[in-house]
């Protein structure tokens, strides 16, 4: 008999349900709200969704190639599999180990708060209109426009066709007491009675991995509700380039699919915020979007192929306005959606937002801005001239490609210190929970601490001799060295949490790309690090990095610590600023026009700078006087 229905139980939750035979474990988990961690959204590439099959091992699919890459023989024998790869053909009990559970995520939605005086594009005006009489016959339109001109000083407005259709009914039903919704000289709606207090907009930061949405009161410029989601496009490609490749290979339907995926998540955030703040989606009249150039194209359904090929030209550079309804967004039917301008193919409106938040275009002093992410953008200059580069730094600092890497969530190790004498370690986790893995800020601190303690040297190599001094330094089954940060007993997982030689190499690659970008940029602008008065560090995990550790590994040019400012995720800040202020939209256009893009890959010095910057902190120690001092104190350099 063919068994078409199976029962899957998830432990330790005890949730269970029936599924068709052949269901993928991850899919089943989702339907029950069992959150299994995943960075690659089911691609089988991140290896974070390890689960153990406790019962029902007879009906499971054999391990895929991807699983074999992430699971050791020992794990396979113990019943461990990847939830996103494994199909079940018989009833089973699945245990979700602590390390694969999603804790409360620290999705950074808040960035620098820059006070901006609201001057929204949409305004609402309560009107008491005198109805027409036989002695004074005027059109409904004139009644509306006259009142707006005389009482509110608004000139040259026009009634939208869609508004006109029901205008006569609405005016009379409301006994001529209505609220006009004015968007850029257009009357986009007429509402019953006085609704002028209820004027909302929605600002979005479209990140390649995370989405953040802000419901805002356009009259006051205040945020009334916030929501965050993972970017669902991840399931069609982990990074922006693989998403573009997906479109190139599968054509327009794939482009539509990517567009619809992100729109539906944005609609979810809108619904969530509206519910929290008791606002109707029809009360959202304006939306604003910020994101990198690939996100712009995939969100607006623009063919992205040629931007991904040298010389990487963007399709649209200027800001663009689209009817929100045309994009499938849930809001007022005549709401406008604005996408903030970009600078280049790899420098998007998220960078424009960065520079806007730190007001770089008006800066007298020379400043540098580094926005750390999978692509790291670096800008340097002042009001006279600004140059920007994009570095392919990769996702190592986000925990990808790192054995025990994870996002900033409950149980993530965010602070690490290593005692140079005992070689023992102290760490702190998010919410002081038992450790599950290491997040970005920990991944900056670990190499800095290991370097100071002499466990790794300036080339990033583990010192074999240290294995004789402490059990914490040991050899992995792959044959490379690693340092144990938390033992199996302390950790919430069933394995030790370590940082391996391979991890250090990945981090070196990422930091070398960033540092080399900064060095080449300075040279190109004929500046030195000493010309920089303030170094702004932006990016999802920017706020949490320890400035000194980052300096110790040479992540950025060496500056006194009080010159370094962390500004967090400014993309969201910029999106909010552009939602509530016309002037800020104009400012964004000016940034896009005036900031010049420089292609690092064609710079003759980039390669040698990259290799020099792959040392910890740098091969050229004359650029690192502070770190030289620091390492001297620790007896690491003579």
């Amino acid at each position, binding site marked *: 008999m063919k068994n078409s229905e199976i029962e899957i139980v998830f432990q330790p939750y005890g949730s269970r349900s029936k599924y068709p035979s052949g269901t993928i474990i991850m899919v089943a988990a989702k339907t029950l709200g069992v959150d299994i961690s995943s960075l690659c959204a089911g691609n089988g590439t991140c290896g974070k969704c390890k689960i153990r099959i406790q019962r029902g091992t007879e009906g499971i699919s054999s391990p895929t190639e991807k699983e074999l890459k992430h699971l050791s023989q020992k794990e396979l024998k113990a019943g461990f599999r990847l939830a996103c790869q494994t199909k079940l053909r018989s009833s089973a009990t699945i245990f979700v180990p602590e390390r694969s559970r999603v804790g409360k995520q620290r999705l950074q939605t808040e960035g620098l708060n820059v006070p901006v005086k609201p001057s929204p594009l949409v305004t609402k005006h309560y009107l008491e209109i005198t109805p027409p009489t036989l002695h004074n016959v005027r059109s409904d339109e004139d009644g509306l426009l006259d009142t707006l001109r005389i009482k509110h000083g608004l000139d040259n407005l026009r009634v939208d066709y869609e508004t006109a259709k029901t205008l006569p009914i609405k005016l009379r039903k409301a006994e001529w007491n209505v609220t006009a919704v004015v968007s850029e000289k257009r009357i986009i709606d007429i509402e019953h009675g006085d609704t002028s207090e209820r004027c909302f907009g929605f600002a979005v930061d479209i990140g390649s991995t995370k989405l953040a949405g802000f419901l805002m009161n356009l009259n006051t410029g205040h945020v009334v509700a916030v929501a965050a989601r993972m970017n669902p496009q991840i399931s069609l490609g982990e990074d922006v380039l693989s998403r573009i490749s997906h479109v190139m290979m599968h054509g327009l339907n794939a482009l539509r699919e990517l567009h619809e995926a992100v729109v539906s998540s944005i609609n979810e955030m809108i619904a969530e915020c509206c519910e929290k703040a008791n606002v109707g989606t029809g009360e959202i009249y304006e939306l604003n979007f910020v994101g990198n150039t690939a996100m712009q194209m995939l969100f607006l359904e623009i063919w992205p192929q040629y931007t991904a090929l040298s010389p990487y030209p963007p399709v649209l550079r200027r800001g663009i306005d689209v009817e929100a309804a045309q994009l499938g967004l849930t809001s007022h039917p005549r709401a406008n959606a604005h996408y903030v301008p970009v600078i280049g193919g790899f420098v998007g409106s998220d960078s424009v937002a960065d520079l806007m938040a730190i007001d770089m275009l008006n800066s007298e002093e020379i400043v540098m801005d580094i926005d750390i992410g999978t692509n790291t953008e670096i800008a340097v200059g002042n009001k006279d001239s600004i140059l920007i580069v994009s570095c392919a730094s990769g996702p190592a600092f986000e925990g990808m490609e790192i054995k025990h890497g994870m996002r900033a969530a409950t149980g993530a190790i965010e602070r690490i210190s290593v005692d140079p004498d005992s070689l023992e370690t102290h760490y702190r986790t998010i919410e002081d929970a038992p450790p599950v893995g290491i997040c970005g800020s920990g991944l900056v601190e670990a190499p800095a601490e290991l370097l100071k303690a002499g466990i790794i040297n300036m080339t990033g190599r583990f010192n074999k001799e240290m294995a004789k001094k402490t059990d914490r330094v040991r050899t992995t089954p792959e044959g490379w060295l690693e340092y144990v940060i938390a033992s199996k007993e302390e950790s919430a997982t069933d394995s030790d949490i370590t940082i391996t*030689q391979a991890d250090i190499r990945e981090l070196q690659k990422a930091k070398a790309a960033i540092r080399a970008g900064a060095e080449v940029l300075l040279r190109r602008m004929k500046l030195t690090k000493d010309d920089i008065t303030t170094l702004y560090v932006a990016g999802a995990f920017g706020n949490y990095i320890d400035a000194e550790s980052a300096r110790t590994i040479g992540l950025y040019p060496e500056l006194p610590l009080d010159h370094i400012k962390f500004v967090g995720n400014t993309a969201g800040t910029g999106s909010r600023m552009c939602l509530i202020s016309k002037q800020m939209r104009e400012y964004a256009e000016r940034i896009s026009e005036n900031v010049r893009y420089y292609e690092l890959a064609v710079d003759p010095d980039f390669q040698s700078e990259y290799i020099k910057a792959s040392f910890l902190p740098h091969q050229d120690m004359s650029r690192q006087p502070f770190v030289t001092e620091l390492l001297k104190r620790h007896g690491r350099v003579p």
Partner: protein
Amino acid sequence: MDDDKNTKVFEKLTQAVITGDCAMAEEGANDVLNKGIPPYDAVINGLAEGMKVVGEKYEKKEYFLPEMLLSADAMYAGLNILTPHIKSEDKQKGKVILGVVEGDIHDIGKNIVKTMLTVAGYEVIDLGKDVPVAEFIEKAKSEGAKVIAMSTLMTPTLMSMKAVEEKLKDERLKGKVKTIIGGSAVSETWRANIGSDAFGADAMEAVDKIKALVSSITAAAEALKQEEKKTTDEK
């Protein structure tokens, strides 16, 4: 004993490269010239041997870019002294056409492969970056090279590798000219998909696979020659 003396010098060069010691490499190279050891032997058994160890350490993650840089510096320090003394007929193991494919301009990885190939004794025709599809094939024809090595960092430009493979087929060169692909965006799956002859996961593996490709071509050519000889003999 001559061999013993040579071995010692070779070992010095090997160690100099492994530890990235330029002074020691120069000293070793001068020893080679002073003692009348054939400089080509010193490159192959000394410097190249050192780079081989470096490559192995690189694969084991023990070495990384910084160590590669130091070792390459030491290697070039020795090479600069020895090269002017190498007889030209000693130089050639084979020609390799190398480049970053059309649409991509990221070439650090390609340059590492170039260094490794050069020291292993190959003549590398470096076409640089953003190399048009046709140029790979034209160069292979005009240079008489039997191996084309292509690299890319970015996924969208994977398609350019496919275009080269297709053009090779169109020109009926597939099999006569072998290809190898590499770079961050490339995988064994992609190699199988486009029908390339080899995939090098890193610089070291690329050099090993290119060696294998060259010897398979040489073997095939030998076999063909034998075959032809047999046919002529039969006639």
